[in-house]
Every structure is written in C-alpha cells, then in structure tokens.
C-alpha cells in the first residue's frame, strides 16, 4: 500500500485538551491542559497568544499573555479586559469568566496525520 504524504487535518481543542478558567479583576485566565502528555508540544506550537487573541476577537478589550507549564502539560492564558470591568461591575452572565475555558476549547487547530 502506498503511504500518503502527511496532510494537515483540523481538530477541535476539546478533543486534545481540557481547561478551567477564572478571574482576577477585569482579566480572565484560562488554563489549557493536554489530555495526553504527548499532545502538549502540539498545543505549545499551535495555541499561541496571537492565535488565542484572534479566536476571542471582539470579545476581549486587551492583549493576551501566555505562560507555559511543561510540568503539568498545561498553558496558562491571561485575557486582559475580558470581563466588562470584572467581578461586581460586569453585566455579563459569566462575569467571572468561569466558562470562557469552554469557549477556548471550540478552537480548531491543525494537526498532521
């Protein structure tokens, strides 16, 4: 059988990772955790701060920062200006960004097969 050359395929982050999010004032944080350790490098390559900023375009007012936790196979994102003033000021249902984690898991990234 002839081997096909690897071609890019798209996968939802939900299939590769789980996540939890919370707030610090008007900044939301999302911790993105690889379901399998071997997928962590793929997350590091594909889920960049710039990519996450594009994903949430129109939903957050400030920049996105990313921190790496290779020991936990996790990335931590800070989404500044994500919460309409945050905490008690915010008018959003999700004033504390508790489920922004799930919005990140909608992102599709390219994986090779």
């Amino acid at each position, binding site marked *: 059988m002839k081997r096909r050359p690897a071609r890019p395929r798209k996968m939802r982050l939900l299939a590769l990772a*789980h*996540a*939890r*999010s*919370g*707030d*610090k*004032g*008007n900044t939301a*944080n999302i*911790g993105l*955790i690889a*379901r399998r350790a071997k997928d962590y490098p793929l997350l590091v390559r594909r889920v960049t701060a710039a990519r996450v900023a594009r*994903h*949430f375009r*129109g*939903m957050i007012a400030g920049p996105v920062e990313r*921190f*790496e*936790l*290779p*020991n*936990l*196979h*996790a990335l*931590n994102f*800070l989404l500044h200006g994500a919460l*309409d*003033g945050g*905490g*008690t*000021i915010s*008018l*959003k*249902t*999700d004033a504390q960004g508790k*489920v*922004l*984690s*799930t*919005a990140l898991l*909608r992102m599709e990234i390219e994986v090779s097969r």
Partner: protein
Amino acid sequence: MSGSRAAVRIAAGQGFWGDWLEAPYRQVTGGPVDFLMMDYLAEVTMSIMQKQKARDPSLGYATDFVPLMKRLLPVLVERKVRVIANAGGVNPHACAAAVVETARGLGLAGKLRIAVVTGDDLLGRLNGLLARGHALKNLDTNRPLSDVRDQVLAANAYLGAAPLVEGLARNADVVITGRVTDTGLTLAPIMHHFGWADDDWDRLAAGTVAGHIIECGAQASGGNSLVDWERIADLADVGYPIVEARPDGTFDVIKHPGTGGRISVAGVTEQLVYEMGDPAAYITPDCIADFTSIRLAQAGKDKVRVSGIRGKPRTDKLKVSVAYFYGYKAVGTLVYAWPDALKKAKLADRVLRQRLDDLGLKFEAIHTEFVGADATHGPLADLGPLAAELPEVQLRVAVRARAQAPVDRFTREIAPLILNGPPSVTGFAGGRPKPEEIVAFWPALIDRSEVRPVVELVDA
C-alpha cells in the same frame, strides 16, 4: 526543625461562604483529620459585613459559622480536630464571642480555646495612611485611592500564615481570622505541625500549593471538573479534599474512603491552573511559589502525590483590597419561544433599546445576551440553521449607571414588552427587576511594615 515527623491532615470544609453545609461535618466524621480549614471571604463579602457592623456592632462576620460550630464542636473536642477559619470577617472578636457562648451552652466551658487574628482591617486607618504618603495606587489603573476615598466601604490587607501559626502555638483549638489569604489557612497548620521556619521557602511554597489545591473545596475532588465529567461517580455524596502533608514538603491530596467524586492528576491540574497569573511567581504574603516546579503523580485510587515544589522569598508588600461604592445595575429577562425564538428576542432588544434612548436615559453600559444562543460564547457560538429552530431563548438585558434614576426607570421597561412587543413571550414570573448597588474593588499594595497582625486568646 522542632515539630512532629508524623504526617498531618488538613481537611477543606468550605470553599466559600455559601458552600455545602454538610461538608464540614462529613470531613470531621468520615475519617481521621487533624485540622478543618474553612474559607468564607470573597471580596464582596467584606463590604457587606462592614455595613452590617455599622448597623449592629455585634455583627460583621460569617454568621453561618456559629450554628455550624454548634453542630461540630462536640465532635471536634472529642476527636481533637482543630479549626482554622476566616469567618471573622470585619469583626473577628464578635465571631469569637458568639462561638464561646455556643461552646458554653454545649457544656464545653474550660474545654475550648479560641485565637482571634486581627490587624488586617485598614478602614479606620485610611486617612492616616494617605496623609503619610501611602497612595494605595490601583494595581490595574495606577490611579491613587484619593480618587474614590469618599466612596470607600471596606479596606483590608491580606495577612499570611504567621499569626495563625502563633495562635496554634498558643494552643488554640479554633483560629478565627479576618482577611487572611486562602492559602495561608492551609499553610499555617502545616507550618505549625512540622515547626517549619518562616524562611524555609521551598516548604512554605509547598504548603501554599497545598492550600491553593483545597481552597475551593470539592473543585479539587471531582466537582466542576471538566475532564471525564460524565464518569465521575456519586457527586451527591462528594468527598471534599484533604491534604496529607509530610515533613519534607511533599503531600498527598486524598478524600475519605467511600465518598463520591474523584481525585486524579487531571482534576488536580484543573484546580492548580484556576485563577492563575504568572505560574512561576504565585505571590502570597508568605512566599513566592513556583507552579512550574510542581510534580503530580497518581499514587493510588483518589490519591495524587504532589512534590518538587520550589519557593522564593516573600516580598516586602502586602496586597490590600479596598471596596468602594460604584453605582447601580439591574438585569431584566424575558423568554421567547419557537418558532424563530432568537429573532423575536433580538427584535425585543431593539424595541427596548429604542425606548430607553427615547426616554433620554444615560447608562454607562447596556449589555444584551441571548441566553441559549450566545450568552457564554458570544460570536464563537455559530448556530447556523439551528438558530431558527431553538425551542426558546432568554433575552437578558443588563444596564449600569453611576446614578440610580436611569436604572430604576429601566426596571419598568421590561414588563410592557410582554403585551406591546414581539410574540410568544413568557417567563416574567419573577416580577420587576431590582436595582442593585455595585460595590467595586480597588487592588493595591502596602508596605508590610504598616500592617501589624494581632493574636488574642479567648477561653470558653
């Protein structure tokens, strides 16, 4: 080190004021534990408590703590389980007095010693601090606190573990505090038990990480856990997490046998990343913990071993949280049904906004959500053809203003839409929305030397 070599167990009993009332009792009766740790203070809680104390000087603490202690005290005394709780709010002495009275009523006079930790409350000292050049600049906006001084409702520094350790060293059975960091409530009993030095940075960081893992209660033992959530067994009987710490700074996260929930590496990882900033510098009043040094391993069923934690010296500042009056908000909701539920809700929103505009009402913000379609994921929730088939959509409109009048008027504009707006509308059983006062928060730093924790003992 002068302390014990035997492992010590710290059980989480409350992750916030309003958490499951059954959890603390189950934690002290479900198996051996040495300390019960309970976290009561969200930011907004302190300003509510200052208002209560202003009306009645015997209030201003987490009142639920007292009936809870009535139920727990006989078991605590019998099993020699000691309690650490920040239930004291802005009036720890009044909280302690109520617990003492409860203990005496239970016949425990002479059998209970309470340590009261204060010194965090800066409200009465604000003018002096500002006059002496402490600007208490907002960490986010860099504005000086003088901008909102007249609206300030509460101001508290976050204390660390040290005064709690002192209370335990002086043989307190119950430590009641005001504003103390969540993590300090767990670190303190571990430091006390092992006699850790207050500059043993790696171990202090380990106790801090232990505190971070259990400070939100069941969120570390299967509650609100996304990973594999459908297979997490028996949440109805969820076991709250327990830290079993060893003198070398390693610890296990466990729960009582036979309880529901799950303790796994994936679940503990979710809790570790919760509310995280820079993971290499998790700053507390006690130390700076490096979360990139944490090692996790599944050491058995419902047992995660945590090791490798590194720490750095504490800073010379403490965080201060100032609560101040900001303005008013209100939220109005209506439910629209199929067919075209979302279209109807969108038309109702346009009608409502035009009426608010025609009335000349000025708001700082008007925020619309279509619950069931876009409330949590915004434009990322792309419904496609499903949009027309949604069985129902809740229109949720919220407004915010510095003045009360426009918010009050807004609350009268929701009900009319039932008869004079788009069709197939219901769900107004709750009545007219209530305007709500907004208390906002002002995060700042203060020199550590300005804050002097005080530890006092009260015997029942």
